[in-house]
């Protein structure tokens, strides 16, 4: 547990809990605190990336991941073999390891544990070499299996190995044989060959290590008594009470939260979780399940005595014998037992606006009350069946014997030293020469260098290497960036999303006379939007903003045609709904399956074998009911915005505000090309419950096409331009804005309102559209290097077909790789990084420090959006990758959509939150490296005024560096101050084009400078 909560526990304990209003408040506040540990993922249709350990953000990162790991029973870092594999690939170097150890242990490293053995030498060997730990039995098996007593470790160098054997031989022949008693092991020594000497050296070393380890007293590991009776019973008897509880609780909570999957809703749902549960089970007289009998008795007692949920929690605490000091921790552990479901109860009760069927506030408390009743009845049942005499649960907690503390055997203690000695070439004689104090300090040093400590150092080295390469790349590229045209032929604004980095790079390579920008993909237009084919409004803006405006899409067609189409759609929709419901019914199901069932083979086979072709055919059919062209209802005539009629849309001055803000954010205030594009993004995939996680995070997990489209339309309005001109942004009359959408999965580009483009611009537009499509092909090609099923020798066109097929394939669990590999966030002018190959790993936010106000208003509002959004994405990926089975939601393959809220594994598991393995598989879990183009003074000023940004950087949830606006110098924020960084290499590798650089590689790539021969001098 973290210090904060321990303190809190102590401060609250002083008050004994009574049943009065004060006691209720205290109990509720403890439950409230415990609820902060629950996953904050809402219903899955809107997937918002957030820091998985959001409840720990007040702590420094390292402390937070390690205490989070203890609270949630998860891993704080990757497994050690992963880091060692990175070491072997050069992804971690020795300098990184040394630096990481120095940062962690400082002067203690030079401490001599024994002659010729410093702590540094010991730790370095432990970090670089792998040796097993385990029970005595496992160790015995390992030694036999690997012939540990006959062959020196294979990773010991030939020199060390032969010296080790030769010195043992000298020692044996001189010292051992010289003694008065003849050493029995040396019988026949005169005729020994190499292999006999090798095994003698190892056996004598092993014996020496064991003998010496036996002299050092072992400290037994302290045994702790678990808080939950279930854990106690499980440890003692192997019977899991949670299995009984889950059997009844999971179906019930799923039915309570269900948003419309079941065809028979929970009766009495309105009465709330607690009442509804008691009503459903408390009135039953018969049951088949033996333990339910106890439960029914208890529930009917609660029903008749009108016990409130809080009173019932208090009863349960008393019966379970939970001490007041342990209550909060006990609630945490109890709620975390089904963290997914409990978290969803929490989300649905607090965000009633995000679901179709809300539940009353206070449902989590009622859930906890029921959970505790089930817990104690199940525990009583199990205890009653297993124990000879009857005891209360409170007695059981104190009386059940704890297992005897296990202390390490001398073999277990000696084994690491035995392995290390081989690595260093120590012989048995060397080990025997150690004094008891030296031996004790070596063993203690080995044993206190636990797996978490080891991985902490390895992880620091892993991040250090990455950080160094990012700093090098930025500093060196900033010296000689690719030239940026002063009068660009066209400008294109994209989302900051790291998936657009490659698209922008390719576009700049195809059209060196263009300029690209990046800004949060809602383009400043925060709206509730309803498309022409949508039934409801969707909020399109970051989750922290609540939109104040509404926007709809309307058909250009006449009313009659539009009505006809919508009636046709409705007819088809109702028919499909009837088929969907009917197929789960009896009579309708029988008729459907008998008469038409065999016809289902056509879509089944076609969609499986020919996904791309089938999708084309389907879209041809859909065109019948889709409006040919549409427009946005953008302008409002009423004073106040609202969701219907003339109150939809924006006033002209609001449009000018939005336009000004976006243009100033990205620094596009002086130079305007004849054509400017705002290209939002979204992702199209099939059969994918996590689809929203691939869409635009800045648009609340939806595609941002209406945002880009409406901004373009606003800025084309002469009245808006007039107003902007008075505010110092003069958009020439010859400039035309176009909105668009980039499908990041199929890599298609769709441009809107192209009919409105002036004839004078048409030819230029056609050329740019071709260039955008070519960039899409190349982008698809670069993405395909990550897909194992896409051959490395595809042409860009074939690669495009490949990704299109992915987006339409029912069987594809990796339609795209989402934000995987994201690791950098750059806030600054594109010209500073133009031409740098960032391997789709960097969020790119355009910001011009030379145009900002003295108090850095633009930077402040940019960081307020960028830090939580990019930080949330980066950290969610970090945790889901580090421990995918627990922080993440595991493999997609057994996922089962439940209640329209989330996914389970199979038919009755906890609700799985976080990201699936298929999304994070290739991700490198590193904290984001955030690089901002500004000065330390300005940055410190922004941080001082924004506590959440300040906390984020000071607690090191991301690395922070500043790129000087006027020179290629970089300062790194470390220990609360900005320090100068020098490049660790002379120059960056360079290549003629992105494709030349990445071709043939599947793995992560170094950053490189792309110098296109076509670029203007």
């Amino acid at each position, binding site marked *: 547990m973290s210090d904060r909560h321990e303190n809190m526990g102590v401060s609250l304990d002083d008050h004994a809990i009574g049943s009065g209003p004060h006691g209720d408040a205290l109990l509720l506040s403890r439950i409230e605190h415990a609820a902060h540990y629950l996953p904050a993922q809402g219903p899955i249709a809107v997937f918002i990336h957030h820091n998985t350990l959001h409840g720990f953000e007040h702590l420094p990162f390292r402390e937070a991941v390690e205490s989070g790991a203890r609270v949630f029973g998860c891993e704080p870092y990757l497994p050690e073999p992963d880091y060692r594999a990175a070491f072997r690939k050069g992804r971690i170097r020795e300098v990184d390891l040394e630096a990481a150890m120095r940062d962690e242990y400082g002067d203690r490293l030079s401490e001599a544990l024994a002659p010729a053995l410093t702590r540094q030498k010991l730790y370095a060997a432990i970090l670089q070499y792998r040796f097993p730990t385990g029970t005595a039995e496992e160790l015995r098996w390992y030694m036999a299996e690997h012939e540990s007593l006959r062959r020196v470790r294979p990773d010991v160098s030939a020199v060390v190995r032969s010296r080790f054997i030769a010195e043992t031989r000298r020692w044996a022949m001189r010292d051992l044989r010289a003694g008065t008693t003849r050493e029995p092991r040396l019988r026949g020594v005169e005729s020994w060959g190499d292999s006999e000497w090798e095994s003698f050296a190892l056996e004598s070393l092993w014996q020496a290590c064991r003998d010496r380890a036996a002299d050092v007293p072992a400290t037994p590991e302290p045994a702790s008594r678990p808080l939950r009776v279930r854990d106690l019973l499980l440890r003692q008897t192997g019977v899991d009470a949670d299995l009984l509880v889950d059997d009844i609780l999971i179906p019930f909570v799923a039915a309570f939260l269900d948003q419309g999957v079941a065809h028979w809703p929970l009766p009495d749902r309105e009465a709330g979780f607690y009442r509804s549960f008691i009503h459903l089970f408390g009135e039953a007289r018969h049951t088949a399940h033996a333990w339910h009998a106890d439960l029914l008795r208890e529930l009917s007692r609660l029903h008749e005595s009108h016990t409130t949920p809080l009173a019932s929690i208090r009863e349960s605490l008393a019966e379970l014998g939970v001490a007041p000091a342990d209550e909060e921790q006990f609630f945490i552990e109890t709620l975390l037992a089904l963290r997914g479901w409990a978290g969803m109860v929490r989300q649905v009760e607090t965000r009633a606006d995000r679901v179709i069927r809300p539940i009353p506030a206070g449902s989590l408390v009622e859930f906890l009350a029921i959970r505790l009743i089930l817990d104690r009845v199940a525990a009583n049942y199990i205890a009653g069946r297993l124990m000879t005499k009857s005891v209360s649960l409170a007695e059981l907690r104190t009386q059940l014997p704890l297992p005897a503390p296990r202390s390490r055997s001398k073999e277990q203690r000696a084994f690491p030293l035995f392995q290390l000695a081989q690595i260093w070439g120590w012989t048995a004689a060397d080990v025997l020469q150690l004094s008891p104090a030296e031996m004790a300090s070596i063993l203690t040093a080995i044993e206190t260098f636990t797996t978490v400590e080891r991985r902490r150092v390895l992880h620091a080295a892993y991040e250090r290497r990455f950080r160094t390469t990012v700093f090098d790349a930025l500093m060196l590229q900033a010296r000689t960036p690719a030239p940026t045209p002063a009068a660009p032929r066209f400008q294109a604004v994209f989302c900051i999303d790291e998936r657009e980095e490659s698209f922008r790079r390719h576009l700049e390579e195809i059209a060196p006379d263009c300029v690209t920008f990046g800004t949060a993909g809602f383009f400043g237009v925060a709206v509730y939007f309803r498309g022409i084919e949508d039934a409801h409004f969707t909020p399109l803006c970051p989750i922290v903003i609540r939109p104040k405006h509404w926007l709809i899409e309307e058909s250009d067609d006449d009313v009659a045609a539009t009505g006809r189409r919508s009636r046709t759609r409705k007819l088809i929709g109702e028919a499909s709904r009837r088929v969907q419901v009917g197929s789960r019914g009896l009579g309708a199901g029988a008729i459907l399956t008998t008469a038409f069932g*065999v016809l289902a083979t056509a879509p089944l086979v076609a969609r499986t074998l020919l996904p791309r072709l089938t999708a084309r055919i389907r879209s041809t059919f859909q065109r019948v009911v889709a409006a040919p062209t549409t427009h946005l209802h953008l302008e409002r005539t009423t004073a106040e915005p609202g969701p219907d009629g003339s109150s939809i849309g924006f006033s002209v001055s609001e449009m000018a505000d939005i336009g000004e803000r976006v243009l100033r954010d990205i620094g596009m205030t002086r130079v305007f090309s004849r054509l400017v594009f705002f290209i939002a993004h979204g992702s199209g995939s099939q059969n994918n419950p996590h689809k929203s996680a691939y869409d635009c995070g800045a648009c609340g997990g939806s595609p941002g096409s209406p945002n880009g489209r409406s901004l373009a339309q606003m800025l084309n309005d002469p009245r808006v331009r007039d107003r902007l001109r008075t505010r110092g942004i003069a958009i020439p009359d010859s400039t035309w804005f176009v909105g668009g959408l980039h499908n990041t999965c199929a890599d298609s580009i769709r441009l809107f309102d192209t009919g409105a483009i002036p004839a004078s611009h048409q030819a230029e537009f056609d050329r740019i559209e071709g260039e955008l499509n070519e960039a899409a092909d190349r982008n698809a090609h670069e993405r395909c290097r990550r897909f194992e099923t896409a051959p490395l020798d595809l042409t860009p066109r074939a690669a495009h077909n490949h990704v299109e097929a992915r987006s339409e394939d029912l069987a594809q669990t990796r339609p795209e790789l989402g934000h995987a590999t994201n690791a950098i966030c750059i806030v600054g002018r594109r010209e500073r990084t133009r031409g740098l190959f960032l391997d789709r790993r960097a969020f790119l936010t355009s910001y011009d420090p030379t145009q900002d106000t003295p108090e850095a208003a633009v930077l402040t509002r940019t960081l307020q959006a960028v830090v939580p959004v990019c930080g949330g994405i980066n950290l969610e990926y970090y945790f889901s990758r580090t421990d995918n089975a627990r922080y993440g939601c595991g*493999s997609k393959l057994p996922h089962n959509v439940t209640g329209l809220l989330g996914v389970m*594994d199979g038919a009755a598991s906890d609700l799985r939150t976080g990201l699936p393995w298929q999304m994070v598989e290739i991700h490198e879990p590193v904290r984001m490296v955030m690089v901002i183009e500004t000065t330390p003074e300005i940055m410190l000023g922004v941080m001082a005024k924004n506590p959440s940004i300040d906390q984020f950087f000071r607690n090191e949830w991301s690395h922070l560096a500043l790129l000087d606006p006027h020179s290629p110098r970089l300062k790194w924020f470390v220990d609360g101050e900005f320090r100068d960084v020098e490049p660790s290499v002379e120059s960056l590798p360079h290549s003629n084009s992105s494709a030349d650089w990445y071709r043939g590689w599947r793995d992560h790539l170094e950053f490189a400078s792309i110098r296109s021969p076509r670029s203007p001098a």
Partner: protein
Amino acid sequence: MNIESLMTDVCGPLVLLAPTVLFAILGGLTLTGRPLPEKLINRMCISAGSLGFVASLLMLGLMLAGHSRHVAIEFGEWIHLPNFHLNVKFVFDRLSVPLAILSFLLCSTIGSFATRYLHREPGYQRFFVLLSLFMAGMVIASVAGTVETLFTGWEFVGLSSALLVAFFQERPAPARNAFRVWVVYRISDAALLLAAVALHHLTGEGDFDRALGGGPWPEGVTPLSAYNSLIVGSLLLFAAAGKSALVPFSGWLPRAMEGPTPSSAVFYGALSVHLGAFLLLRVSPLLDQSLILCVLVTALGLATSVYAYLAGAVQTDIKSALSFASLSQVGLIVAEIGVGFRYLALIHLLGHACLRTLQFLRAPSLLADFNSLENAIGQRLPSVDRGRWLSTRAYRFALARGFLDALLLRLVVTPFVQTFRWCDRQERRWAAWLAGPGAESRSKPEEWS
């Protein structure tokens, strides 16, 4: 080469060999411990499936062209005793050919689907080995001409299904649930084996075309008396109930959803769950002989159907909802068989398998489907409330999946286990007494177990 020999020498053996050889190769190569490339496994699986599919289609064409309704292929008589003989024989008729076609079609489609769905999954090869075993089992069971060959296929299907439920063997829940499925399967296997023994005992034959009467399906007339038909038929009904998750064995159906989506689709949506109904169709001449048996079959089918309809209505996750919907149709198919509508049941079975497979494969699209339906209709989807006339008690019954597992546990498993525990205790006591007083301390049971 005439039509007759084309059927018996080419098509028939191909139908059988395609899946069995595939399993032999895949399984054999897996035993060597070397992982095969995904692409190779996929190619082998698809080509064997397509080969079998084409061969069985050709068989259908030839049978239609030659107006033959019953083609038997014999692989020799393996045991011949005065009152007993064991044939390996396969029969192609109006029942087995459609089912074989269906098995090949669905298994190869699922195989192709799984290639991409399971890409980079550590158990990829294991999945395809089990899928090929399943396909072999389905085809052998479909075209089996004797009760012994049918049993072989039946076992293959059971083994591969249970192992696929436990596909994610690193987690405890799949292993636990697979064990439940396995136990129910074994019990139904035992019933099928008893039925086979009874059939042999009563007629001296295991061959369907003799024990169940000569004519082509479904026109055979069994030589068994009504009483004997009832005995054999009840055992077979018991076996079918276990395999098709009929009442009271329905509890395993939702538990089987632990495997990857394609395996859930092929087993519980499409093929496995229909195998019991197929068995009843195959032995339908027995039903003609015994009215009581017909009543039993119909009643069990209807009971299952109503049960699954109720339980399915309260399910909040898409896979369980689909699996109970599937079960309610299987119940109806069984009832149709009991009433005597053989062809209707067969068509119902085929159509249901196809539609449900598609629905299962599209199960992860639930959210998108809801959304697009709402958009088409232009409003929130009207909620469906099938239980508005029913009581809270009925809801509890449905939510607890009819307490079937609990009932089985209480009425069958617990007494069974207790009996044997009692025997065990007696044996220990007896052994302790024999060993004398000195040995007592060693056999003392531990306090907590």
